[in-house]
């Protein structure tokens, strides 16, 4: 959906198209389901989570299917966003200044484009983590068809799956923290699609310049 088809409030700019938002929420809902059922099997102290989500055998049955949906969404993100996630010189400078970012001194940060270097790292971390989760998860899916001699594959897969899950959980916590708590306006952008011009200027000045430059009718 292009900018013109969507009603953007005055003083706001479009950040996420409907397709981008839908993809995000398919991934998010699937991920949260995977996280809850996965953690239920990870720790006996959380087993009750699987019980309230329809029973542990149901959770075991649905987890891999939810995984496929999750990966399909991640793949779609890859197709949509990978070109924008390339590491640039600004990103190098951004990482050097990351301590200012994490202490809310955003005025000292180099101007980020549509995504800052941290968001790019998050994207690639999620992408590779999801790929590992998919590959190992598929191996773990149907143990009844596993022959004894190939059991080593399943043993390794369980380790890889749990490690990759932990890695993405770390990213996930940071993602939620930044999106919901730290950067006010980010959550709304992935729901409504738009951000205020002030938000764009503050967090993604490079991107803001770009879209203003592109636009034929200058925004107020």
């Amino acid at each position, binding site marked *: 959906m292009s900018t013109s088809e969507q009603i953007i409030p005055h003083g706001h700019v479009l950040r996420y198209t409907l397709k981008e938002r839908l993809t995000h929420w398919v991934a998010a809902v699937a991920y949260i389901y995977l996280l809850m059922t996965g953690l239920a099997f990870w720790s006996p102290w959380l087993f009750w989570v699987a019980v309230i989500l329809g029973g542990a055998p149901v959770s*075991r049955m649905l987890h891999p299917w939810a995984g496929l949906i999750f990966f399909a969404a991640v793949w779609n993100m890859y197709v949509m966003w990978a070109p924008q996630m390339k590491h640039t010189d600004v990103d190098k400078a951004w990482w050097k200044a990351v301590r200012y970012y994490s202490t809310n001194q955003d005025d000292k940060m180099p101007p980020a484009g549509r995504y800052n270097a941290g968001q790019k790292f998050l994207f690639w971390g999620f992408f590779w983590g999801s790929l590992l989760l998919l590959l190992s998860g598929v191996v773990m899916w149907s143990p009844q068809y596993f022959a004894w001699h190939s059991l080593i594959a399943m043993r390794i897969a369980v380790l890889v799956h749990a490690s990759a899950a932990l890695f993405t959980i770390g990213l996930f916590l940071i993602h939620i923290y930044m999106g919901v708590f730290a950067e006010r306006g980010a959550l709304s952008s992935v729901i409504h699609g738009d951000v205020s011009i002030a938000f764009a200027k503050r967090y993604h000045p490079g991107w803001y310049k770009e879209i203003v430059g592109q636009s034929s009718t200058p925004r107020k």
Partner: protein
Amino acid sequence: MSQATLRVQKISGHAGTVPGEGTQREYTVCKLIDTTTCIGCKACEVACMEWNDLPFGETVFDNTYQTMPETRWNYWNLILFNEHVREDDGSLMWLMRKNQCMHCAEPGCLAACPADGAIVQYTNGIVDFQQANCIGCGYCITGCPFDIPKMNPKTHRVFKCTLCADRVSEGLEPACIKSCPTGCLHFGSKEDMKFLAEGRAKQLREHSNHPNAGVYDPPGVGGTGVIYVLHDATKPEIYGGLPKDPHVPWTVKLWKGPLKWLGNVAMVGGLIGLFVHYLRYGPKAREEEDINPGGKP
């Protein structure tokens, strides 16, 4: 296969303590299999299927006595045949080993299982799967060093030998023991069976051409509730691939040990860290006041 008369001492996937643990002083039970007097008649296989009411499955004919390569979800007791040529005198040995769950003192299946109560170990040492609690993940399969747990592909539940926990709880011996025509199977306390087995191994060493005869009770899994007398205890592999020094696989130990702890500390620490960060620094900007002074334009 819940046994009301047997107390439980270990529970898979269980948070907290085991209720009733240590309330009973039961002796550990043990099955002794003397491979040197087994004749491969398969009476024990039939007894197992009859007592446990297992449906009959197709066998695989490969021109040997081996009716199927390994145990199945509905075939818990299988004699493994092997023709072995002795290195020292070139004589042929026809080896037969009754294969089933070993009822490990430290069961890898139980350690790997995430489902509360899907695998239990009774105070008498029997390791028993409770299919009602099983979720069908197959983790137990990765934890067993003997390739014993097998999954029913239709119901996604795992089955294996129960050491006839139902019979044992009533004071009976397992069905296979009762059926053995040569008396190569014995059942009793672990202590008694060890004594009997050591005596038999000594007899073989001293009075027959088997100087390496010995007892198989692998310490790597804490000892087992099924022990073997072997003609050559230095080569357990020749008895249908009996592992020489079985352990719970290192992958399972790493996963259920350090990885679990590291992961839990990292997740809880991460949550606390982010919360403290928020208290210290707060949001980057409050949308209403800081980004859009004077409210939404």
